């Protein structure tokens, strides 16, 4: 299968390559790379992941000879190896000022990956040759297993614990491959799992409650009794009394300033020099440190037909003041023999921040316990001034070098999974004079209206001036209810039709077209509703205005449906014409696919705009991998600016809270 995949890649590459040479448009290369990567991830995600897990052992760590690493110290001993007396097991160790103990979750970076892997340390030992090793059982990110996810939805920061037997379950790596500590909370309802508290969920980087069996490739919520010969209880949350050191270790020791020299010393040791044209990983930046950048900041391009712009720089350890993710990436000593081509050098920005998807700088994720599986809100912090290359597949945040203001222009997108509830109404006694609407009997259907299809009726009504658009209704109303309301409030018999929602309708707002009997009736209604306020039960005033519908333009096709020059097209004959008119999936080795991917990106972008505007989730994120999704941010910023950083729902809520009379919900 690998061969076939490679072949198809080669074909694709061949077909586009000559054109790539001619085509100076860099966007195409980006999309080419995107398509390549999409293919790759789609077919080979799992194998890729697991085959590289062993790469850590192949990395030429230069400090193999060093006995004492000043930033490393062993903690509690556990016992000697049974078979090999030279092996000493440990329960904890301190590395780079951070305490790690058994069954902690750690980040590990691979040289050519931006996103670190997350694993649970299940064994710590020192070999007879003084090599410090840990065995980690991996957590899978959703993106790595999309192929087997099918319809299963995952929470935003959910991981899957590896289980079963086989490649990808666990690896033994050197301690030096660890780049940080991670806070992963188990929210499984398994009876062996101590349920996490709210505060724990608040500070969690990730959650998990399902396993991914590496052999059968299945996702399940059942936990086997042991994973990788370790009792499953160790994978669950620790008992509460032990929770303190966990958090402390994650945060406190980070703030300890370290002498820059020692850190530099370590950095050179953990330099990853490999001959691949891999991508550099990005690094955390120093916010308040007076430490200047070391070396150059280089932006490299992957030589594999892709313009992936990555940033790398050397930073100081004091910069790791961000509370959660210790993403300490491998640093490149760019003054040394950098195997990468340096295409660009960043000028003004001397320090690079990588903001984790979970809040940075104090925007922490908030959990909502109302839903059984806690779904976590994200905050994305971006800084638009720093968005250098909009084609970068991974967009990272660059911060002002002096770190004066945490983010110059903060764009925070909140993804919530709460649905604002549209509640049904309860009959209650109120002191105000209310009009109770009773269900009208069907005789109310006036025979004055001929039963024309709505299209025509609307057009006719618009001409006659009897069409009114009512807004700010409860979206769950039916047309009949709207008619009732109008009849009771305005004493006019009308016929109404609720406007159907589409993907960009505000889910809180309902609209309806109402046709009055006469234009005067319509006029009076509009003016009445304008001058006075007709309040609906949950604090919504009804807004009315002249309805207007656009003429349906007879367009010949949708923008985006392309065809090659007409003359040639007709020559192509029956099959080709049929191929266009029938529906099909695009095949991944065609240009069509590449373009389709572009459209998907745009569609995702647009759904995110609308979501941001309405502040309710519209479309769950699709198969576009997160790096591509990040491209939307510059566009999004325009729209956010427009809506003045205030979402529509928020505005309404604000006003509603000012209502003095009680709201009935």
């Amino acid at each position, binding site marked *: 299968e690998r061969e076939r995949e490679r072949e198809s890649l080669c074909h694709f590459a061949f077909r586009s390559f*000559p*054109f790539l040479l001619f085509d100076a*448009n860099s966007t195409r290369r980006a999309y080419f790379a995107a398509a390549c990567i999409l293919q790759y991830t789609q077919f080979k995600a799992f194998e890729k992941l697991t085959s590289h897990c062993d790469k850590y052992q192949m990395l030429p760590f230069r400090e193999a000879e060093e006995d004492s690493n000043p930033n490393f110290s062993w903690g509690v001993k556990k016992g000697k190896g049974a078979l090999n007396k030279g092996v000493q097991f440990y329960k904890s160790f301190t590395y780079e000022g951070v305490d790690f103990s058994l069954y902690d979750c750690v980040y590990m970076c691979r040289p050519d990956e931006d996103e670190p892997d997350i694993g649970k340390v299940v064994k710590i030992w020192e070999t007879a040759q003084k090599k410090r090793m840990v065995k980690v059982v991996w957590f899978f990110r959703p993106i790595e297993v*999309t192929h087997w996810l099918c*319809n299963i939805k995952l929470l935003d920061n959910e991981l899957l614990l590896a289980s079963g037997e086989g490649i990808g379950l666990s690896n033994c790596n050197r301690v030096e491959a660890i780049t940080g500590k991670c806070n992963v909370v188990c929210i499984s309802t398994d009876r062996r799992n101590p349920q996490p508290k709210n505060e724990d969920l608040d500070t969690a980087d990730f959650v998990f409650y399902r396993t991914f069996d590496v052999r059968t490739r299945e996702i399940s919520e059942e936990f086997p009794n042991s994973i990788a010969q370790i009792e499953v209880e160790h994978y669950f949350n620790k008992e509460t009394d032990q929770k303190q050191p966990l958090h402390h270790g994650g945060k406190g020791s980070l703030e300890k300033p370290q002498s820059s020299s020692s850190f530099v010393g370590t950095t050179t040791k953990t330099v990853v020099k490999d001959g691949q044209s891999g991508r550099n990983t990005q690094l955390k930046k120093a916010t308040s440190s007076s430490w200047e950048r070391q070396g150059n900041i280089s932006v490299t391009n992957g030589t594999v037909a892709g313009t992936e712009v990555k940033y790398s720089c050397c930073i100081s350890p004091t910069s790791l003041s961000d509370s959660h993710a210790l993403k300490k990436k491998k640093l490149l000593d760019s003054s040394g023999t950098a195997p990468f081509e340096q295409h660009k050098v960043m000028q003004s920005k001397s320090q690079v921040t990588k903001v984790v998807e979970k809040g940075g700088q104090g925007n922490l994720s908030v959990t909502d316990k109302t839903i059984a599986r806690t779904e976590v809100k994200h905050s994305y912090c971006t800084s638009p001034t720093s968005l250098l290359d909009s084609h970068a597949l991974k967009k990272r945040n660059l911060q002002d070098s002096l770190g004066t203001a945490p983010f110059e222009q903060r764009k925070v997108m909140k993804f919530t999974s709460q649905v604002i509830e549209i509640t049904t*109404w309860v*009959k209650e006694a*109120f002191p105000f004079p209310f*009009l*109770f609407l009773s269900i009208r009997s069907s005789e109310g259907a006036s025979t004055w209206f001929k039963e024309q299809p709505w299209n025509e009726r609307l057009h006719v009504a618009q001409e006659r001036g009897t069409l009114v658009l009512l*807004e700010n209704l409860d979206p*769950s109303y039916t047309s009949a*209810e709207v008619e009732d309301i109008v009849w009771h409030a305005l004493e006019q018999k009308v016929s109404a039709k*609720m406007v*159907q*929602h*589409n*993907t960009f*309708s*505000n889910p809180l*707002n309902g609209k309806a077209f109402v046709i009055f009997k006469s234009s005067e009736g319509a006029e009076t209604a509009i003016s009445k509703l304008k001058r006075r*306020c*007709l*309040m*609906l*039960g949950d604090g919504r*005033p009804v*807004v009315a205005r002249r309805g207007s*519908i*656009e003429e*349906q*333009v007879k*367009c010949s*096709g*949708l*923008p985006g*449906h*392309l065809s*090659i*020059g007409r003359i*040639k097209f007709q020559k192509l004959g029956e099959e080709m014409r049929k191929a*266009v*008119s*029938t*529906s099909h*999936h*695009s095949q991944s080795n065609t*240009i069509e696919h590449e373009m*389709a991917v572009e*459209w998907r990106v745009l*569609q995702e*972008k*647009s759904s995110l*705009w609308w979501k941001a*505007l309405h502040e309710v989730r519209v*479309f769950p994120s*699709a198969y576009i991998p997160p790096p591509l999704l990040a491209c939307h941010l510059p566009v999004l910023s325009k729209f956010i600016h427009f809506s003045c950083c205030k979402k*529509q729902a928020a505005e309404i809520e604000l006003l509603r809270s000012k209502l*003095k*009379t009680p709201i009935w919900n």
Partner: protein
Amino acid sequence: MEALMEECASFEDKVKRTIYIDNLSPLAKESVLKAALDQFGNVIQVEFIRSYLEMKGMACAALVEMQSAKEAKTIISEIRNSPFMISGMPRPVRACSAVAEMFDDRPRKPGRKIVCRWLKTSDPDFEVAMKMKLIVRKHAKEVNFLLKRQLEEEEELAKEQSESLNIIYSKFELIEDVTKSGTATRLAKHYKMRIADVDR
């Protein structure tokens, strides 16, 4: 009462089984859509959503009712995972599960009473309510604006793509001409080089 409850229940079931598809070409007819989705399962009904706020170049949308909710889910995930084209390329359609508000004819929820009242000007809430009305109007305008921008973006992308497609096609023609007319082989012979034929 019973009949109403039943109606509601069957409506909710219908909502679960229905897919909302958009980014459709206005040229796509019901039969085309039906044929397209028949590959995945049994299509019961196709209904186009007529949008009254239509602007030039906006895509159409439709509600497709399938026989079972499972089929609906499969289709949605398929369309999401791999671009699916209906009557025109390369712009793919987009699908998501339908929501009750998308439907035209909803049964009334039983046991629900709606209340409304006129506010007096002396009422303390009057001001707030007027403000809310203004905000609602503002929102409507914002929505329009965003919609226009979206359409502009789409058209831009379409133009870009059609340009690049034309360029690619002309290059392709060029190469095809050269190979077909034998110029390439003749030149190769002349320069004593070999042309490797790439296997298709």
